[in-house]
């Protein structure tokens, strides 16, 4: 009642069907008191950005295990420019270190590899969203 809730969209772009990681993260954020909108498998960049817009989320989490992270993230960032809608994005999955750094340079807020404790992800999301809200 009357209080602000952190809202996060968890999406799986691309064609791989392994959504366990996305589900574990969604559940972890839920248990940290956030509202998590889970949109499921095989989402296009356009669908993800539109869903994030309509849901007015504070952050988007992408789970990518297909190796397509560079092109997918680039498309999503372009789509955000096109819609003039910008929220921070974090990416989880099999992301080589070099690519991770590249993604951060492109404007991705955080990259999490396999084995990252949920508490780290929750902490990072809270930190990034907290900064945005106070701005």
């Amino acid at each position, binding site marked *: 009642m009357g209080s602000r809730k952190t809202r996060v969209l968890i999406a799986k772009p691309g064609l791989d069907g392994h959504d366990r990681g996305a589900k574990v993260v969604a559940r972890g954020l839920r248990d940290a*008191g956030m509202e998590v909108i889970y949109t499921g498998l095989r989402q296009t960049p356009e*669908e993800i950005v539109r869903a994030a817009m309509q849901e007015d989320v504070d952050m988007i989490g992408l789970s990518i295990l297909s190796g397509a992270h560079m092109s997918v993230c680039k498309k999503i960032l372009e789509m955000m420019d096109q819609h003039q809608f910008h929220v921070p994005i974090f990416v989880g999955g099999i992301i080589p270190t070099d690519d991770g750094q590249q993604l951060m340079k492109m404007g991705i807020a955080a990259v999490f590899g396999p084995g990252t404790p949920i508490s780290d992800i929750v902490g990072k999301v809270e930190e990034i969203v907290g900064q945005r809200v106070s701005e």
Partner: protein
Amino acid sequence: MESDKSDRLVSSQKSAQLDGLLERLRKGDQIALAKAISFFENDPELIFYLQGELQEILAQSKSHIVGVTGSPGAGKSTLTDAYVSILRREGKRVGIIAVDPSSPFTGGALLGDRIRMKRHFSDDGVFIRSMGSRGNVGGLNDSVFGVIMLYKLYGFDYIIIETVGAGQSEVDIAYVADTVVLVLSPSSGDEIQLMKAGIMEIADVFVVNKADMDGAELLKMNLETVLNFSEIQKPIVMSVATSGRGIDELYQQIEKHKTHLYETGEICQRASRRMKKHAETILDNRIQSILQCVDSNDVNVMVNAVLDEICKSRFGGL
């Protein structure tokens, strides 16, 4: 409701922001609509802010509000998805509110209704907003009234509200929707379950979903028997939401009910019922917040004093 915009509920900065958002959303800006919803969601009392010209628009709005309720997994989201496809075929613009439960422990929520509505994600004529119930126990969210107003201002032809998975007594949707659709699925119990008070009473249209499964015909027969006990005939639609079977008929039945509401003038009763429920919700929340400020020790002292008083008068101070 005074028409003073400097109501203590709204700070001047907030009101300027909200003014801007309302202006933009009326021009069809979905980002502004989404942000305005967040405002209302975080502070349902902002509704007092919508006055003057906006009230007039709302009074003239013909957006039809369809409530979809039923037990978890009955197929509410999938049915909504299929129904929206038909509304889109008819050229209607649709705003959806999909409520899922918030955790009573952490306040967090997993909002997963969208996942069944993927085919409308890139359609400009469909707007989907997921909500946590945030402590509301009637199957909705307290800000649902505010979001309806915003959807009406935006100009959706149909507003679909999907409740949380409802058991027997989450019936608030009856006070909010113009047409209530109750989704049932086979194996949900015998005819005694259908005779119980509560959710079975609030439906305007019954849907037996998953009609390709065993037990669907039996459920329909039981439902017909139970509905025959009453004088008002209510339609039963057999559907398979995943394949689209029966959805055309659902659309027809909702249209029929809509026509009936307008012909009999009942649409006005439903609107005032909604307004009354809205007022009650605001009052309840006010009272809750006042009670939260009361020290529980004070309450105990007061309760004991009253009990002593009662005992004294009844039992002569024994």
